[in-house]
């Protein structure tokens, strides 16, 4: 698989996942403020992006309208839903021959859906729209999964999707924790159900959580969203899944390349940590370190597979063999 093509597929998947996660968070915030109408509810969303400076410069107040426009339809903000879906489509367009035609057509429809909503203004950034974004993301993912052979292309997309998810879950967890628990003394108590429920709902994990844990405590939240290996939006699950796909994409140094080493390290760390350790050491510090590791992993993936490396292949595969791995 051409490096450029692998990179485009990887980023296509990352951008779709980015758009979906953003839609989820905004949607949940919208629902929460129906009971709890404060400007405070919108600020964490902006903080979670890490782009407060841009927001400050272009918007100022954390009003519902400002934040929703910023995150949904701002075409000059590279991480808005509109920008993310546009980038996903652009990446797919240059590698159309590498993905199924159904996947391309769905992504194209997704893009048109968001573009058309953006044209009508921020009032369209409502619950119905965000549900639509989620649906399109699911549709795209489902079609992608059911129409692509499990070859390198599919695996690179899978890696992109799950790494992006891990990153986004960690951010929202970090920000919510910071906002909701500034007071160390409150650790270990049954916290405000409503606000933590909103976090769980934003990852579609509320029912799953309840089934496993019943009542909400910080330790259980951390267990579920960080360490769990069964729930598909838990960070550990995401890292493990990305790691599985990484081991499938091969490479001449596939036993020991930097990306594989790093993902094994992160996964191992998550596998051997207990929620007590995380809370005691500080959830924020833990997530900070995790994000740095995930960034490092992203860089390693780029360097190993997508950058224009000069290492020679070990064996000359025949065209027919090669077509199996494209």
């Amino acid at each position, binding site marked *: 698989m051409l*490096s450029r093509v692998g990179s485009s597929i990887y980023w296509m998947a990352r951008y779709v996942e980015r758009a979906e996660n953003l839609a989820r968070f905004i949607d949940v915030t919208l629902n929460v403020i129906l009971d709890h109408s404060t400007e405070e509810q919108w600020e964490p969303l902006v903080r979670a992006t890490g782009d407060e400076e841009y927001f400050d410069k272009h918007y100022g107040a954390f009003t519902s309208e400002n934040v929703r426009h910023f995150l949904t339809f701002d075409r000059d903000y590279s991480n808005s839903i509109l920008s993310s879906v546009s980038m996903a489509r652009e990446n797919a367009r240059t590698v*159309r021959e590498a993905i199924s035609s159904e996947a391309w057509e769905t992504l194209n429809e997704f893009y048109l859906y968001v573009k058309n909503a953006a044209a009508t203004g921020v009032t369209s950034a409502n619950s119905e729209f965000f549900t639509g974004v989620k649906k399109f993301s699911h549709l795209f993912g489902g079609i992608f999964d059911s129409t692509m052979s499990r070859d390198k292309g599919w695996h690179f997309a899978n890696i992109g999707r799950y790494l992006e998810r891990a990153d986004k879950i960690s951010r929202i967890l970090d920000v919510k924790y910071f906002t909701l628990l500034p007071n160390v003394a409150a650790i270990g108590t049954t916290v405000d159900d409503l606000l933590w429920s909103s976090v769980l709902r934003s990852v579609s994990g509320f029912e799953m959580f309840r089934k496993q844990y019943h009542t909400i405590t910080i330790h259980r939240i951390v267990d579920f969203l960080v360490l769990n290996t069964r729930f598909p939006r838990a960070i550990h699950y995401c890292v493990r899944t990305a790691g599985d796909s990484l081991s499938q994409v091969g490479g001449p140094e596939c036993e020991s390349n930097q990306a594989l080493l790093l993902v094994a390290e992160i996964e191992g760390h998550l596998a051997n940590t207990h929620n007590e350790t995380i809370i005691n050491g500080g959830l924020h510090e833990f997530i900070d370190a995790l994000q740095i590791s995930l960034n490092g992993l992203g860089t390693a993936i780029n360097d190993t597979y997508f950058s224009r490396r*000069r290492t020679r*292949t070990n064996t000359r595969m025949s065209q027919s063999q090669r077509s199996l791995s494209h």
Partner: protein
Amino acid sequence: MTNLTFDAYDTTGYFDEMFLEDRSPRQGAERLLQRINSLPPGELRARQQEIESALLRMGITFTVYGDQAGTEKIFPFDVIPRIVQASDWRHIEAGLKQRINALNKFIDDVYHDQLIVKDEILPREILEKAKSFRPQCIGLNPPKGIWCHITGTDLVRHTDGAIYVLEDNLRCPSGVSYVLQNRLVMKRSFPQLFTDSGVRPVVNYPSQLFQTLSSVAPHGMSDPTVVVLTPGIYNSAYYEHSFLAQQMGVPLVQGEDLVVENDRVYMFTTDGLEQVDVIYRRIDDDFLDPESFRPDSMLGVPGLLNVYRKGNVALCNAPGTGVADDKVIYAYVPDMIRYYLDQEPILPNVPTYICQREEDRKYVLAHLGELVVKAANEAGGYGMLVGPHSTLDEQREFAQRIEADPRNYIAQPTLSLSRVPTMVGDHFEGRHVDLRPYVLYGDSIWVLPGGLTRVALKKGSLVVNSSQGGGSKDTWVVDIQRTDTADDSSI
């Protein structure tokens, strides 16, 4: 909804590809006519629309340069196919094989000893001023001595019923993807008709192309790595590059994906560098290699020509073939056939006046209103004067151009191109067509049955190019002996 019939269809004045003068169908068109006449009202139009939707969905587009925002457009399509009778096809096929054979020998000669010039068949000044002659290619020896692996030759039929060669396209001829996709959508719309009419399949073009490309791999290697090199998504023919790569099952690469090292070409893959042996390059010579051609090209691969020179990569078509795309050189192709093959041309050129020759020039200047004047190296219908449709001012302007640079111009009588019935509103009208068969030259010379029929959709227009209001039709080579069209179902 009115029924579309041929009752009022007018064939006067031009050769009609479907009907004889008495309005009975030509041999091979009977079933088609029967089918059209038996369709319920509105059905043909409905199928036309279905086909157009299918083409849109499949994204069969081309980009028009100079159009605002470089928009993608669907290449317009008309559902009535153009029929080519078996006897006509045999003639065309033989003529094309002969022509490509001669052209290949010419190109090879021109980059070696130039015997055709020494023997005074082709004047030296003509060759020297051929814009696409590439001195960088002098002395090069492509594998098996083949320079033009993929050719698209444009043919037209005049009112006299004879088929003439309008021009050869020896650099990056495009359009074959439309041929394949037109056939695909037509078969879905009229499945029974294909079986009944004995239309020759086109479905094996990609495998023939792959075989042709593989056959010229360096050092005769078996199982070479073949790639399609594209300038990228903003190129007007990008869809075709992508389509052919996919159909052949080979990587579609851009210049940035390739690198030259150790006198070989490699592509950057997620596994590291992988050697490339044959490149089907859809990039013009000028942009192929900044070290040998235009240094400002961002589309090519630095050092590529060197690898080619050393015989470690095959480039299809070979650099330098553009010399024969020159319209003045075209005028000498019949002489080439005589000179290299000692044969008379099977397919004639359109009669051509060469403005370089004083007598021809005088005639042309005196008859500008009747002739089609063409600049030697323009494409797509640009740089052309269509005498009968031009104003006196335009003619005067062209006269000046000819006087200033006579070597650069040829002129031909206006041909009355043949016509094919085309849906216009609620009835049929004849529209002018040409035909571009595709010729592959590998271990042998192979001609795709049929080719691209381009149709001038505007009433009375003779200009068939996609950039100027042309569209296409499916082309049927009807071979009544053959009935095994089952092969065609696998597209």
